[in-house]
């Protein structure tokens, strides 16, 4: 099965490989055995590339052979090029020849096997291969009289180190985050899952950018059909550029018209590893620390990695806090509008009296207040995010003062509305993964509440709910395990069961091999007889 998949994959990769769609003959042609021809070709292809370095040298003493080394400055590790390629080529080869003498024909094999002290050396036979290698930071050695060039892996460029991701900071748990470098990211994953079943298949997407995209999955746990489906969808992307994982997300998601995300993302390798171990697929993209995870279910937004690192009781409470916050953030303006303008009879008397007192003399209807305040809040938020931190704080202070204090004292809006919007805002930060979703839902609900009150809210809920249950992420129902209900899976949704009780993977995803660990792993304290009696 997997073998077959591999075949399909390689066929697919061949299909995408950028030389196929491009008919330009000169790039596909094999290298010439004349070094001059090769040199001309390469330098003409890279015309005007000021970062290109072509180092011409003569190697050997007795029979001097023309050769050149080509690489892109900045993409290579200079010390490797100098110490492990240029120095051996110029010095050690001379010694080798001095000792025995090497024929011109064997010089290539000699260099590859004896001279180059670089980890990974490949051979390239076409001009295009040479160009691709150079572009991805490798060093190419072309020798006169040989139609085969040597490609040494010397990749090494300025990268950001592994840091704590700002979007998903934790109190307990690993603090490392993905970086912009694909290789680092795969290494981070490998370090979490030291298993040959962790497959990392790389493909290049983007006609111009040729971005490396890596599909990671755990063979044996993942549903193979899902992997094929992901590959098929990735294969269909035929675009100029992939600069961020968001590009890919929008090309492969199931419901492009929906405001709900069907592809998840994370910046933390431990989360990615956990998703892999649940049978999900992680898509790493070069150039961004954000990894995509599919299939993505709605309930994942309420799970945080820290839930699993801390003990289950508080995690369960926190999970319910998140649900509550989500509902507050989605419903509170709508309910406020509905209650004050349509159903005052449903407010408890004491509350109604104080609400009526607060609403006294405010000029706008509640729905206008709610929508207006919502917009102002979004403006403030946006202003705060993009600005440098100190200014951002100033903006939020001014905003809070203007809205919270002045507007109420001036009698422009009622104080309860400010409270409602503040609750909404704060609550939407509790579930950051879907804060955009809550904003959209909130808008829909508030508008409907303004038109129809409670009935409008309920109709909007019905619409949103039917929409949500109709969605699928890679064939997995979006709202599972709630609908269709899968009671064993609720152990990680409604509660967070202790680890020893989570013996099965989420069945909708990891049905292939559902058992994660032995049952009956509950720790038993030693019985009295073993206890140290003092």
């Amino acid at each position, binding site marked *: 099965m997997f073998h077959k998949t591999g075949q399909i994959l390689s066929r697919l990769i061949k299909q995408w490989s950028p030389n196929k769609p491009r008919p330009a003959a000169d790039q596909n042609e094999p290298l010439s055995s004349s070094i001059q021809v090769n040199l001309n070709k390469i330098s003409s292809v890279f015309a005007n590339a000021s970062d290109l370095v072509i180092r011409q040298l003569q190697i050997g003493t007795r029979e001097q052979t023309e050769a050149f080394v080509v690489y892109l400055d900045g993409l290579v590790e200079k010390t490797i090029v100098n110490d492990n390629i240029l120095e051996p080529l110029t010095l050690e080869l001379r010694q080798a020849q001095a000792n025995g003498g090497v024929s011109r024909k064997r010089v290539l094999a000699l260099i590859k096997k004896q001279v180059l002290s670089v980890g990974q050396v490949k051979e390239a036979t076409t001009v295009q291969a040479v160009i691709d290698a150079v572009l991805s930071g490798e060093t190419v050695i072309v020798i006169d009289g040989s139609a085969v060039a040597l490609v040494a892996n010397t990749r090494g460029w300025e990268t950001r180190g592994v840091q704590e991701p700002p979007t998903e900071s934790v109190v307990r748990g690993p603090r490392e985050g993905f970086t912009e470098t694909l290789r680092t990211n795969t290494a981070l994953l490998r370090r979490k899952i030291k298993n040959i079943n962790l497959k990392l298949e790389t493909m290049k997407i983007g006609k111009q950018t040729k971005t490396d995209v890596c599909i990671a999955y755990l063979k044996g746990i993942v549903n193979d059909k899902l992997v094929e489906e992901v590959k098929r969808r990735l294969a269909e992307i035929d675009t100029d550029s992939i600069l961020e994982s968001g590009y890919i997300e929008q090309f492969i998601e199931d419901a492009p018209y929906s405001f709900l995300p069907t592809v998840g993302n994370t910046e933390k390798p431990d989360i990615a590893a956990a998703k892999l171990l649940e049978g999900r697929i992680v898509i790493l993209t070069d150039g961004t620390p954000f990894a995509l995870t599919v299939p993505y279910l709605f309930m994942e937004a309420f799970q945080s990695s820290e839930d699993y690192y801390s003990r289950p009781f508080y995690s369960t409470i926190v999970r319910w806090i998140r649900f509550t916050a989500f509902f507050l953030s989605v419903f509170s303006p709508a309910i406020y509008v509905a209650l004050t303008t349509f159903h005052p009879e449903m407010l408890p008397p004491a509350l109604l009296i104080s609400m009526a007192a607060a609403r006294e003399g405010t000029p706008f209807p509640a729905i206008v207040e709610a929508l207006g305040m919502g917009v102002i809040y979004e403006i403030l938020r946006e202003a705060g995010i993009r600005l440098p931190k100190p200014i951002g704080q100033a903006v939020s202070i001014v905003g809070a003062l203007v809205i919270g204090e002045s507007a109420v004292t001036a009698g422009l809006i009622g104080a309860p509305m400010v409270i409602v919007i503040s609750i909404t805002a704060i609550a939407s930060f509790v579930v950051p993964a879907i804060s955009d979703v809550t904003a959209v839902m909130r808008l829909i609900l508030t508008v409907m509440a303004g038109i129809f009150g409670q009935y409008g809210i*309920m109709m909007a809920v*019905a619409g949103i709910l039917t929409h949500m*249950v109709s969605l699928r992420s890679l064939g997995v129902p979006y709202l599972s395990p709630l609908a269709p209900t899968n009671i064993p899976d609720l152990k990680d949704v409604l509660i967070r069961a202790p680890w020893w009780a989570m013996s099965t993977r989420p069945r909708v995803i990891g049905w292939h091999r559902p058992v994660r660990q032995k049952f009956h792993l509950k720790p038993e304290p030693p019985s009295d007889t073993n206890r140290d009696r003092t």
Partner: protein
Amino acid sequence: MLEDGRITDRQFMLLIIVSRLILSLTYLPALNSPPENQDVWIAGLLSFPVHLLLAVPAYLLAQRFKDRSIIQSAELILGKTGKIIGALYVWFFLHMTALTLRQLSCYLTSVPYPETPAPVFIIVTALFAALAVGYGVETICRTGEIMTPVVMFSIFVVIILIAKDMDLKALAPMLEKGIAPVLHGALTIAARTVEILFVTMLLPYLNQPGTAKKAMAWGIFFFIFFFTIITVSIITTFDVEQAINRTFPFFSTVRLISIGEFLERIDAVHLGIWILGLFIKISIYYYLTALGAAQLFNLQDYRPIVLPLGTIIVSLSVLQAENMVELREFTSYKVWTWYALFFITFLPLILLVVAVLRRREVQAR
């Protein structure tokens, strides 16, 4: 295949519960049916065997033609005449949808929105239901799967909160009028369970058709359980004399909830849950109408006719009755029981008998 969705037996059960139960949360015509006194809840309990009895023909018919709905199997059994029976069923589902919509709008315009014209609610609800119907039976069932537990939970909460106002003495004396009116009441309650027909329409989409019998029985059981506690709570809080006078008995009960000054006026929550539950009921009947019509005309897809059918449903719903008195009259046990019984039991029985006589079975497939 018109519909490629698959539903589980749990979804099927919950669908029956919510669809049958949800209108009992407002209208509860059982209180005005015989025995018309405090024995209504006994009638509810006794209706369980009656339910099962009434469901037998429909169930056997569905089992006999596992891959066909009643509309298709009627055609198979009776040929051209079967088309007429199929059309009758499409009409019945259409009528159910229109009637339910009308009942929704009637409640909404009676209590929370007296000044809003009723057609507004009918149109808006029908539009949203059309959205759900377009998504297919899977979506409706899944929505039901989420909402039904909420409905059931809310009933429990209401019962717990109203418990201090309940006076169980109101249930005495039991069987005041003897057993006969109670049995009549059981029949009227069972005859309102049009949801029995779900098995004839949705059995082909159950992922385990064998469990349909169990799911249906459990669904009816749960319905009766909740029906009983609802009627008991109404009768014990209002006494019989007041209870049978209520237009919306259970809502009146919910409005009485008042615990320590702060936990009161929770009818908004209840109203919301009721609207959602009713939305599911409307969606499923709307869906059955569209599906049935598509099967009747041998269409390949039911989705194009959803909105055109919606126009019929909406206008039928508006002209359903001149006023609420007429609506109440029509849905009372005197009329509705026999009308529903005709479709639930009588027609399936005829079809079944003919099918047995003519030995039509699944062989045609």
